[in-house]
């Protein structure tokens, strides 16, 4: 088991944003958390990355308890996140962004890692010396994913990779996520686009106002009447 989250509770001041959430991710799986805006999906990822803390409960990554570890240690251990809204460094070049992704890795391997990222995203290679701020939304999403891959993660968490992208780009991004998984990548995917997420995931969890209300193989969730009604547009 790569990631095991047990009974985490996260608060923003008095607001109880994540309630007794437990789930796990196995080696080589794509697991997705789906749910409406504000259901607590991003909060869960931030808590796993150590930006927020859970009151009680535990988070284990590769068998090690990381619930109180600092973010830089979590990243070094191989758990990376491509955050919501991409959050690439707009004033830095594509190459520099990628270097930042490999911050916890020895510099000597950067060239080889970068070539692997460029093989997945040839557009980034063309634009390697441009500031990230000059890239289109789709290219920035590719950069955010490439940057995360630079750390050679054992678990890759993606927060809303489809956000704000045109449908054709969404298809492209999900194709790449599928490819990464076929290459052996373990992925925890948070999405509002439930149909796309469930179509590539092995298992899914449905989140509603901070609580997991359903968990099942993704194929079953796609056929589930409640899920259909609430998240798949009838």
């Amino acid at each position, binding site marked *: 088991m790569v990631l095991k989250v047990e009974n985490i509770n996260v608060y923003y001041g008095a607001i109880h944003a994540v309630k007794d959430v437990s789930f796990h991710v196995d080696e080589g799986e794509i697991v997705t958390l789906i749910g409406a805006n504000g259901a607590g999906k991003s909060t869960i990822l931030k808590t796993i990355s150590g930006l927020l803390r859970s009151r009680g409960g535990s988070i284990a990554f590769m068998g090690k308890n990381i619930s109180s570890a600092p973010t830089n240690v979590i990243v070094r251990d191989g758990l990376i996140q491509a955050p919501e809204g991409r959050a690439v*460094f707009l004033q830095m070049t594509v190459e520099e962004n990628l270097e930042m992704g490999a911050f916890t890795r020895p510099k000597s391997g950067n060239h080889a890692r970068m070539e692997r990222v460029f093989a997945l995203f040839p557009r980034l290679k063309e634009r390697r010396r441009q500031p990230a701020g000059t890239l289109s939304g789709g290219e920035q999403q590719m950069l955010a994913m490439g940057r995360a891959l630079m750390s050679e993660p054992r678990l890759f968490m993606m927060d809303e990779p489809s956000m704000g992208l045109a449908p054709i780009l969404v298809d492209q991004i999900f194709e790449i996520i599928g490819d990464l998984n076929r290459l052996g990548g373990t992925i925890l995917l948070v999405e509002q686009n439930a149909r796309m997420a469930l179509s590539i995931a092995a298992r899914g969890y449905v989140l509603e106002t901070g609580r997991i209300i359903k968990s099942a193989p993704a194929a079953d969730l796609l056929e589930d009447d409640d899920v259909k009604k609430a998240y798949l547009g009838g």
Partner: protein
Amino acid sequence: MTFILYLINGVSLGGIYAIIALGYTMVYGIAKMLNFAHGDIIMVGAYVCFFAAASFGIPPVIGVLLAACVCAALGVIIEAFAYKPLRQAASLAVLITAIGVSYLLQNAALLLWKSNPRVFTSIVGTGAVRIWGLSITYVTITTILACIAIMICLTVFTGKTKMGKAMRACAEDKNAASLMGINVNVTISLTFAIGSALAAVAGALLCSAYPTLSPTTGSMPGIKAFTAAVFGGIGSVPGAMLGGVLLGIIEIFAKAYISTQLSDAIVFAVLIVVLLVKPAGLLGRQVHEKV
């Protein structure tokens, strides 16, 4: 010919402002706070330099290095105890704290080193070289050279090294930087260390050019350097450099051609005009608030 001399002296004075302004702007860039105690670090640096030479007979170059180390440590300590606990606090609270730290440093200096001004011995001697009939002091030349060297070092550091790039990443987006595994706290401490070490160098140069040293020595140059940082565009390293040098030139020209008494008023008037025309400063970015 005197015009050129004034210009050179202006660049030199401006160079000192620029070195101080770099500290303001780097700290602002990463911690998004105005460290009003920065000016008083200059004073501490100058005192360390003074006592290293006067009490221990340490050679000036070593004295400056020592002052830089002491101030770097002081900067890190101030950040850790005064500013770090306020990382999530309102910016007004941080601002007031910074002013408090400024008074703390001045009064600590008053207790430790008394109020009587000390005569600072120039770190490069008082001689001058004659070039094409112009007499240019060693201090002027040293200041300009130091300024160029510092600018080159900072450009290489932020553009080429891993830590320097991490610093830029933190300045842009602390959450994202931290998700890349960059230790944001260490990076902020490093920024305070560099800024404060530069302030120490500026203190030694300043007191070599204007040799009276007292516990309030740092406050006026501190405010002017802050002005220079805003003038050039706060948060921008080249902006701080440009703002500092321009401010120095304006000040010397105002003194030479208009009025010595009014020179500071003219300097600040120019700032007001620039900010009216270009609110983000000369090289600053216009910040578009996302809604």
